[in-house]
């Protein structure tokens, strides 16, 4: 009878280690044959461009998203590009009621008996985004005569709410009490200063006056400027030190701007951006099969059924067109595309996540300046693939409506305009499809 051997733990560990080493060596590199003749199957890639009526139902433009006060700057313009007028409105915080004063003994005391003897309004302007003339420009300052509502103020209405509308005494946020003009040369700095006398600063000494605030406008024609910040600096003579002048700052409480004319959306235009911002809603209706060009059909079976596997690229092609004068893009327009989750609730439909990578597509302003416009490709491959999948997968819910909007709302006064249905260059859907002969076993 044969005996049973003893075992050594050390040797078993050595065996285990060698197994590990061998298994770790399981890096695979497939044997490769570089031989065209040996390719077992074939694939054909084609491009099919669908006109609007073959892939979409309609486009609708909705406006009113955002308010001018939400922009990080105000705007002043006068006959910019022959049309645009814009004025910036500012209301003030309350005047300071106390100032710290060092008396003749050197002690710092709080002086509440402040006499405002004058002041100045300092406006900080954007020296980079100056449109129109190149040299010094003249700006005008006026004291508003009536209160206004930050959220609803417009060129013609000081208040535009459900409870009532209050028009301006004059269109354009007027009338105003003129407080003078000042010249600004951007080569000399970013600030323009308006000197004020005691009567002027007294206009805003109470809360009603503070709410009325000021109107800043351009006097020089053909320009457009951005107003970054406006501050009121009060000159006061404290009673405890009547020989001393103190300068106390009063920040702006509210800032907005009004403009004219309001760029109504003409029929057949797709619009994105502006303030209040516009969104354009495209409703898709994809076909089940597409028909490539005749010469392509000599090589592959036509029509081609749209399947997720066959789709390798889908891009919406929009042709830019000039915006209304005064609203032409002067900086990059960042366009985002999102699903409208409840299209029937537009303009208040909730939106899905962005369908574009990196949060949006950047379109440089030059693309909007060519007279004939330029094509802009908006990649929608993943979304279109989802639409195709949803046909057969009832668990997938993909909205057929997508919204084109500015990546930030509002972002700018200018907006991007594209040719819509009925235009010479309506939107098109460019598909790149690959069809194969099928993978067989032989």
């Amino acid at each position: 009878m044969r005996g049973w051997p003893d075992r050594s733990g050390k040797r078993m560990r050595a065996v285990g280690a060698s197994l590990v080493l061998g298994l770790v060596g399981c890096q695979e590199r497939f044997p490769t044959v570089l031989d065209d003749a040996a390719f077992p199957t074939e694939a054909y890639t084609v491009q099919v461009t669908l006109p609007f009526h073959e892939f979409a139902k309609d486009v609708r433009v909705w406006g009113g998203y955002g308010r001018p006060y939400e922009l990080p700057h105000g705007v002043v313009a006068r006959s910019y590009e022959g049309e645009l007028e814009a004025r910036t409105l500012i209301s003030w915080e309350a005047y300071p009621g106390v100032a710290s004063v060092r008396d003749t003994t050197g002690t710092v005391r709080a002086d509440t008996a402040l006499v405002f003897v004058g002041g100045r309004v300092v406006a900080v302007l954007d020296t980079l985004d100056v449109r129109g003339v190149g040299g010094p420009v003249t700006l005008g300052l006026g004291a508003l005569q009536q209160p206004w509502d930050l959220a609803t103020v417009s060129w013609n209405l000081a208040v535009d709410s459900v409870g009532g509308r209050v028009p301006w005494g004059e269109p354009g946020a007027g009338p105003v009490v003129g407080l003078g003009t000042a010249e600004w040369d951007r080569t000399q700095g970013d600030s323009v200063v308006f000197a004020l006398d005691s009567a002027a600063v007294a206009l805003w000494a109470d809360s009603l006056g503070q709410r009325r605030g000021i109107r800043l406008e351009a006097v020089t024609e053909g320009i457009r400027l951005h107003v970054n910040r406006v501050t009121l600096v009060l000159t006061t003579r404290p009673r405890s030190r009547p020989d001393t002048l103190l300068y106390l700052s009063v920040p702006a409480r509210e800032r907005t701007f009004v403009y004219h004319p309001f760029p109504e959306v003409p029929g057949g235009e797709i619009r994105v951006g502006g303030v209040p911002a516009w969104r354009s809603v495209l409703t898709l209706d994809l076909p089940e099969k597409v028909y490539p060009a005749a010469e392509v059909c000599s090589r592959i079976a036509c029509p081609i059924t749209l399947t997720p596997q066959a789709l390798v690229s889908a891009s919406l092609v929009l042709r830019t067109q000039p915006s209304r004068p005064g609203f032409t893009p002067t900086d990059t327009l960042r366009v985002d595309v999102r699903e409208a989750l409840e299209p029937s609730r537009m303009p208040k439909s909730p939106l899905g996540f962005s369908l574009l990578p990196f949060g949006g597509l950047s379109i440089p302003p030059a693309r909007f300046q060519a007279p004939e416009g330029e094509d802009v490709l908006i990649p929608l491959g993943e979304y279109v693939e989802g639409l195709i999948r949803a046909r057969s997968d009832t668990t997938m819910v993909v909205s057929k409506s997508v919204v084109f909007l500015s990546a930030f709302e509002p972002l700018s006064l200018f907006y991007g305009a594209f040719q819509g249905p009925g235009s010479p260059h309506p939107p098109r859907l460019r598909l790149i499809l690959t069809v194969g002969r099928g993978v067989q076993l032989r």
Partner: protein
Amino acid sequence: MRRSLFRHRTPGPIPPAAGLLLVWGLLAGPGAAGAPAAAQSVFSKEGLGYPLDPLDARSRALGAGGPGLRGIVFGPLDPAGPSALYFPAMELSLQPQWASVQGGGAGGGGRPRGTRFPLLALAYPVSRLGGTVSVSFGSFFDQRWETRRRTRVELEGTSYPVSDVFQSDGGVAALRVGWAQRLGDQVGVGVGAGRLTGAVLRSLTRRFDSVPEGAQVVSFRDQGRWMYSGTTLSAGFRWDVVEVLRVGGAFQWFSDLEARPSRDTPGEAVSYSLPWEARVGASAALTPTLDLALGMGYSRWDGEGDGGDSPGPSQGLWSVGAGVEWRGWTGATRAYPLRFGFRRQELPFGPQGSIPVESAWSGGVGLELFRAGEEVLGGVDLSLERGRRRGGGVSENFWRSTLTIRVAGF
């Protein structure tokens, strides 16, 4: 009181066991250091793939894989081999391989590599019946390969470069159950039955190397998956003519190999006819420390050339091998057998319907870990082969190593 043979050993500098395993690990596992490990062959692309014999390291080193080897042998190519077992035994083989390809339309083919597990076998004697039951899972065909090309597509007047890759990933293996019966001390017979199993995934991927401006382009992929099934029967004999001479023979029959598409794969099932195989072998102890092994095999194909339901040649294919095993290198308590061999075999599938020939010189060493009397009950065998395959204008040089770990008497 039985004295343990393995306890109380004083550790020496790099014990031979660890050294042997370290060498194999370095050969087989350079993937651990970032270098390629092993691979199969560009001949995997032809027909049903590259045939992988389920041989252990000792058989590989001796060149004469198959029946008639002296010692503990219980692989699927020797159905009667387990009849000589008196202990339960198990063995596992790993086989890394790397190759370099030249010639033909293959445009180089590169340096394929990969690791396979050609054999996992278990044998259990049933002393009451005088026989041994065995189970083995061994390789049969390897179908891993890929082909690439660069081409251009025309999209509305503009040409774009694309890269196409066609890849095949899979293979066929055989799960066998066998019974080997001792007929006295010198003769044994064995029978076996098994199922062929496996799958292959074939895919085409097209990728754009540059894309139209502003477009986002994803890769196109088309694929199909098939599952293999079939049946195999085998029979064999072992005859210890005299104490120093053993001869053996084996016969294998295969049913048609069915390839059924998966649910997502269009198309019908395909059936392939497979050959029958016969092997004979012998091993003799020329001296107390030197054995000679010889082996020969024949498989009969009834193919129609490349492709079709009857792949492979319409002729028989031969394999021959010979080797020696020398057990003169011994330690205090065990021997380290050294093995050398040569093997030549004809392969069933080659480019343009050719019959490739594979020839390889081999060497190997064994490490006896456990011994009971004259029987090695546990050990590790390592083999290394250097060979070449040629056929249809394609030439492929390869290195192949095999590690077998065997444990018996548990």
